[in-house]
């Protein structure tokens, strides 16, 4: 069952140096409960695409359908995780998760507590964001989005700023959440391993103009092993797709 449909999406930015074709004829579909990762070099339009789907930017040509109806504005149907946690610094963890919803309501309090357990931050409910590490804060941001029971969770390089160790831990947490809640995920990343490790489908984008160059299905069972030969095989397939772009550029764009 198709949940999200992107149909002939075009987006150009008018800049002082001329037109930038950030998105060029983007088409893809996302099934309910699917985990899709989007990978591509820096500046190929990944964030632009995600913002359009979120409804944060509606100055594009083409159509985006979520559950059959066209996306016009931001809504809690579409959870968005930014690259940084963006927590409200004056709210405790539990209040951040509840945000505009009343935490003193029993059902909400219960659900918040369940989510705090899910992201494994038991005991931190009344801590302020300044007392959290980057990974902990990002987990709170994920819980905040999950509380709204979004149809799709849009994640824009959510673990990009984390060290390798914390990042792989966060990947486990995210997979766990996905397996438990069956939330549809659209996950942007720079990291090929991360893209393969998480996804049912990897969308490969290329720059100038920003377009989809390939969609690769990853049929490996969970839990996956990065060192397994089938994993490495897919990795090679994807790397080959980047012939034109070459790996060096990918590494550069990852800011390593």
């Amino acid at each position: 069952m198709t949940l999200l449909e992107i149909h002939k999406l075009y987006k150009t930015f008018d800049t002082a140096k001329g037109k930038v074709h950030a998105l060029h004829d983007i088409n893809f579909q996302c099934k309910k409960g699917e985990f899709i990762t989007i990978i591509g070099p820096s500046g190929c339009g990944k964030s632009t695409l995600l913002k359009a789907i979120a409804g944060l930017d509606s100055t594009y040509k083409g159509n985006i359908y979520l559950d059959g109806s066209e996306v016009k504005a931001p809504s809690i149907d579409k959870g968005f995780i930014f690259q940084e946690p963006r927590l409200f610094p004056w709210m405790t963890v539990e209040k951040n998760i509840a945000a505009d919803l009343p935490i003193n309501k029993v059902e909400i309090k219960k659900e918040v507590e369940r989510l705090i357990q899910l992201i494994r931050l038991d005991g931190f409910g009344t801590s302020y964001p300044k007392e959290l590490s980057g990974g902990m804060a990002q987990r709170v941001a994920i819980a905040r989005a999950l509380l709204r029971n979004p149809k799709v969770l849009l994640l824009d390089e959510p673990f990009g700023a984390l060290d390798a160790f914390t990042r792989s831990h966060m990947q486990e947490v995210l997979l766990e959440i996905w397996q438990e809640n069956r939330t549809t995920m659209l996950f942007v990343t720079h990291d090929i391993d991360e893209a393969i490790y998480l996804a049912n489908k990897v969308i490969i984008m290329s720059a100038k103009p920003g377009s989809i160059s390939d969609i690769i299905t990853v049929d490996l069972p969970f839990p996956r092993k990065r060192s397994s030969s089938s994993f490495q095989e897919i990795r090679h397939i994807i790397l080959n797709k980047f012939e034109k772009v070459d790996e060096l550029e990918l590494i550069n764009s990852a800011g390593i």
Partner: protein
Amino acid sequence: MSKREEVMLPINLNTNRFLNFSPIKKYEKFMRFLRGIRLPIIILLGWELSGYLGFVSETLLPRPTTVFQKFIELSISGELLQHFLISLRRSLSGFFVGGFIALVAGDLVGFFSKAEQSLDPTVQMIRTIPTLAVLPLFILWFGFGEFSKTLLIAKASFFPIYVNTFLGIRGVDSKLLDVAKVLEFSKWKQITKLIIPSAMPNILLGIRLSLGAAWVALVGAELMGSSEGVGYMIVDARTFSQTSVIFVGIIIFALFGKITDSLIRYFEKRLLKWRDNFQG
């Protein structure tokens, strides 16, 4: 998995809360108090000694003990309390009038750019006029009565709150505004959950500055023309060369200024404990 988790969690942050009650913390607090009080004590001792040894004339610079005696004397007669209460009433009424209007106006120009365009230029123009310079005008228009004094104090306390409320509202992080959009905050929730808390540090700063300004304006108003209040007490004492009474007045001003400031700081600490700033 669980092993990883152990490493990830910093050794429990919540212990901070218990540290407050530990003897080490108490000792540190006491030392901080000592460091703060050291200099004033040295100055007082030197002052007392130089008066005692006759280095300076008692009429120009009465000794701390003389001032203290005077303080007790005036307190017992009830004179001091009466003057103080009048000054307090004046400054508070002026502060509340000016501060309230400033909060409303600051919110207006902060939230609505049309209000900003039509209101702010005028307000900024008036702001540059020194408060004490308009005092003669107020006296001419409204006489020496309470009204002109309240008005003067209100004018002085208006601007810090106005400017800082405006700044605070406009300083809201656009990244957090995006979050509010994605989470579908209602207009009301946007104000109460995002804009007001984020502007709170500025608003509190405005209130603190404004209380100080109100205090200065009060002294100005009372020195210029008044028949009661701490300012009057000082002027009156000068005519009779009662230097110790002048000192008592000054000390009252200083003490009260410090107390109100500490009160605001206390609220700041309570309300802004979420902040993550350099603590020195």
